């Protein structure tokens, strides 16, 4: 700016040339901003590593489960395990939406958005949408790996698997709002990741994810049977195995919707505070 004599404002259009924009455009632009992060594949690779390791370990470690008397006959353990991995991985990934928002809060991007004529709900919606896209990519890669490496091929066929994938995405999306709300109020990456771990791991093991609930010891079975994750996993499993029981499916969808709505209210109130 040393030599220029031009003016920093009003160089072209008059002051009121841009009259703001619709929420749809806001969400599209903001989601596009986040999608740039995917051009750097390192994060995606990192987030796939953990479920891939889990898949490898559990498909070997728990293989004997398939021989236990409680386990359905003629069912490959990988076909039993994979729908659960979709749900647990999808749920864990919800944390990333919160991590993204916490980063925006820290680096000041949110401070800028608060002073713009946009709806802060667009900022949150864009985060949750981006997280869903990322989650979809991650789960698709996992599915391909499970099919090619571990012989995943459930009775529900491609349609059943896609339905299970869609369900996992909706569940992850609903939970993403919980983490968005947490990020908006806690605003601390480490604390949030801790909460994510502490909440998810016990829920994951005290569920029907890896073994049938009847084969769990008494007290654990009680927890597993009231654990919402069990219902989500049963729903996903039913879809993939081509034997869907619709009440857990609808239950999971409705619960996700309610969780998203409550999370959205809190996230919206929290994110507006400077």
């Amino acid at each position, binding site marked *: *700016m040393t030599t220029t004599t031009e003016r920093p404002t009003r160089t072209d259009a008059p002051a009121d040339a841009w009259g703001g924009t619709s929420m749809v455009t806001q969400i599209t632009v903001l989601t596009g901003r986040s999608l740039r992060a995917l051009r750097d594949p390192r994060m995606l690779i990192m987030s796939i590593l953990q479920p891939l390791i889990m898949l490898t370990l559990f498909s070997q470690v728990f293989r004997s489960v398939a021989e236990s008397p409680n386990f359905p006959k003629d069912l490959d353990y990988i076909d039993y395990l994979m729908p659960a991995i979709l749900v647990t991985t999808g749920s864990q990934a919800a944390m990333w939406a919160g991590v993204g928002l916490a980063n925006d809060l820290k680096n000041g991007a949110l401070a800028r958005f608060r002073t713009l004529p946009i709806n802060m709900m667009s900022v949150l919606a864009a985060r949750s949408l981006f997280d869903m896209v990322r989650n979809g990519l991650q789960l698709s890669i996992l599915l391909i790996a499970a099919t090619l490496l571990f012989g995943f091929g459930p009775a529900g066929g491609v349609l059943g698997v896609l339905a299970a994938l869609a369900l996992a995405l909706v569940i992850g999306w609903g939970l993403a709002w919980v983490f968005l709300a947490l990020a908006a109020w806690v605003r601390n990456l480490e604390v949030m990741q801790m909460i994510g771990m502490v909440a998810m791991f016990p829920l994951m093991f005290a569920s029907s994810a890896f073994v049938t609930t009847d084969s769990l010891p008494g007290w654990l079975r009680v927890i597993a049977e009231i654990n919402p994750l069990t219902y989500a996993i049963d729903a996903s499993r039913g879809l993939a195995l081509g034997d869907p029981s619709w009440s857990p499916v609808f239950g999971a969808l409705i619960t996700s919707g309610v969780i998203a709505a409550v999370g959205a209210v809190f996230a919206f109130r929290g994110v507006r505070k400077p």
Partner: protein
Amino acid sequence: MTELMIEAEHVRKVFGDVVALDDVSLRVPKGTVMGLLGHNGAGKTTLVNVLTTVLPAESGRASVAGNDLTTAPDKVRSSIGVTGQFASVDELLTGRQNLILVARLLGASPGQARERASDLLELFDLADAADRKASTYSGGMKRRLDLATSLLGHPEVVFLDEPTTGLDPTSRVSLWEIVERLVDDGTTVLLTTQYMEEADRLADSITVLSNGSVVAAGTAAELKADVGQRTVAVTLTGESDPAAALESLRRKGLRPMNEKPQRALTIPVGAASDVAVVVRALDDVDAEVSELNVHEPTLDDVYLALTRTKTAA
């Protein structure tokens, strides 16, 4: 009467027990710079947050660019540009991407956004670094990008919260020049600062905040006249008689600060013409002067005096 672009009346904001803003009123006419002066914790950022619709006030009312903050916050946000105390650039994006993103959110088409981004990158001397990630920028570059982002939508009112804190002297001066050009164009600026020099140089009027209250308001000259003291410092040559000089000054009704005769004398004066009285008083006793300086009160003096009385009260 000129159009008021910022008008705040009896604004109050509390955080729990802390009264961050207590009955703050201010008026900023179009095309002028209001300097908001105060030390850390005075309430500057809180006032900027209230005026930019980020925080709701407890009571009082305010309007910016003719729009009421509570009834038309979206209109307010459409007419302002804000550069916060802490950089608000997305470090994962390049400078250009940062600008395009915000332009799009303001309603520009992709083409308009790209064009405006290029213009501003050029104006703010960031063209060379335009396609580098903002995380590689220096502090001064981030500030400039931040400011450029605030100006994307041709705002009528620009808020700058401590825009030069932490900048090196060169970056500071170049930022001042940007502000001056903005004002030449008719933009109204509210700028907070801890530096008297900055307020003195840029602000048409100054509001001094302390512990959330306005303790003084006026032009720099008015503040100096109200609180500051103009002094004349003279140094007598070795041959002169300091005792006679002191005596002569007192006879003329002046009240030198020195209790005892000394070669260096400091004499508070009222009007500028009183300097002549000092010279005549010395001349009367044939005291020869080797050095004479008139010290105008600085904003620092004003600020110190004000905050001292405030603390004592």
